[in-house]
């Protein structure tokens, strides 16, 4: 059994993939509970799609997707924040416009610049192709996300729960808003090689949603979300190795399975507590 578990790691590329998968899974799952409780799923999806034109230009200039990580994330976050704040068409509509137009621009740029990108890998991830420098970058991004969330946790929580109350209390809510958008962008861009543009959303929201179903407190939901996210990443990677499946979709489906189990457990728990109330 242990031999079977260790078998994939006789290859260096599998060790790199495992570290990247764990780092991506953890990074997205730390921010997931904030994102789902703030209904930011659509925003996160738009962020992922908005990376396409930046990736097209970056790859054309000779950078890898991971190397583009931080600058691309900051650019996307600030751009999205400014557009949403300064248009009067409603947040959902503004996000929808950015989402589709940036994605379209990305494809046009790929064609115009004649960039050689495997679109399937970009859309659904190709973790087996990560280089050693990619691993360092993704681990560094995870460290940044983790440290910033720890340092600003109370302020981010206050702002997310009651933005007006936080502003009245004297917190810099504009800074907190952009800080969270940048963190989210960093996690998304840093995970593109693992799960791709289309599936990155699943790794952000599914582990967090499953955690919300099984625990009652926010801090615990972050811990459980990370547990579910990392479990999905590792299990997905194994499935990908042993059954020759695409890695990104495998991780996403494992996360979905965990969500279904959490959903069923939540239903059973609720039924149990209702029965107890009826009997008493």
């Amino acid at each position, binding site marked *: 059994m242990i031999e079977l578990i260790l078998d994939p790691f006789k290859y260096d590329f599998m060790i790199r993939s495992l570290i990247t998968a764990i780092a991506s899974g953890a990074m997205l799952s730390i921010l997931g509970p904030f994102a789902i*409780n*703030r*209904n930011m799923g659509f925003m996160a999806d738009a962020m992922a799609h908005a990376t396409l034109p930046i990736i097209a230009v970056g790859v054309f200039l000779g950078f890898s997707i991971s190397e583009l990580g931080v600058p691309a994330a900051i650019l996307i976050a600030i751009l999205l924040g400014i557009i949403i704040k300064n248009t009067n068409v409603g947040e959902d509509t503004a996000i929808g416009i950015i989402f589709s137009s940036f994605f379209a621009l990305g494809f046009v740029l790929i064609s115009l610049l004649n960039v050689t990108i495997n679109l399937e890998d970009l859309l659904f991830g190709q973790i087996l192709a990560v280089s050693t420098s990619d691993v360092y970058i993704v681990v560094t991004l995870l460290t940044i996300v983790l440290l910033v969330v720890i*340092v*600003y946790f*109370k*302020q981010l*929580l*206050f702002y*997310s*729960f*009651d933005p*007006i*109350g*936080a*502003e*009245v*209390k*004297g*917190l*810099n809510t504009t800074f907190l808003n952009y800080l969270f958008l940048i963190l989210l962008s960093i996690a998304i861009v840093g995970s593109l090689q693992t799960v791709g543009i289309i599936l990155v959303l699943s790794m952000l929201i599914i582990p967090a949603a499953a955690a*919300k179903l099984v*625990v*009652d*407190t*926010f801090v615990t*939901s972050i811990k459980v979300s990370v547990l579910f996210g990392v479990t999905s990443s590792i299990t997905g990677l194994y499935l990908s190795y042993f059954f020759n499946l695409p890695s990104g979709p495998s991780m996403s489906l494992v996360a979905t399975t965990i969500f279904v189990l959490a959903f069923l457990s939540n239903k059973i728990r609720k039924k149990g507590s209702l029965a107890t109330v009826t009997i008493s």
Partner: protein
Amino acid sequence: MDTKEVNSINTPLIISDGCCVHFGSAPALESVDFSINKGKKVAVVGPNGGGKSTLFNALAGLIPLTEGSLTIDGKSPDEVRGTVSYVPQKDLINWSFPLSVKQVVEMGITSKKMFNVFKRKKINDKIKKALQDVGLEEKINDNIKSLSGGQLQRVLIARALAQDSEILLLDEAFSAVDIGAQEDIMQLIDSINLDGKTILIATHDVNNLEEKFDEVLCLNKHCCAYGDPAEVLTPEVIEEMYGSHTELFMNKSHFTTEKDNSND
């Protein structure tokens, strides 16, 4: 003479002098004048869109004035940002966060510094004291989702108390809570007021204001009246605020029209 009277004598705390707020070209407040003494308990009444929340936002330093001045203890709201406690309307808060009562109250002590200046024990003591004051000390570790509407309102008031500010702004504190909970919240406000805090409450309920509040500020974009509820809540003021809906208020026994008086 009780403590409250001593505190409030001739000590103007909040002064609005021709205060105007516009959203684009639309006026939200026009030339509002009033002066609230320290330690007063003031009801802010008026129709929807009458400027109650706008005034609170201006007092909290959230929106700038377009004309006039608004001062708190001689300073602009922006200068005293963070020293005014604000309990916003409940629907402006994201209740989907699975937070404990303790976490919400602790927000009142959260500062913009990266690390809180208070020691953990001091923070816990402040949270406990604030929850004791609102009668929810036994709920300290409960999830906010398990609380009733009235209890949630009291948790937000506890958060405001933990902030240790002299002025409390409560926007629609009585909305979406039953009559019993309204009574509880009013009793709580009375006890906070006895500690010398100045309290402004935006409310739609104009019944028995003279029994509950020291003063009333009647707003319909402009200041229709300000003063002792028993004196200023005349049929004319009610009509100025609510226009064609005045009859709804005229049916209340404590509003007597001149016509009613002449029939006596």
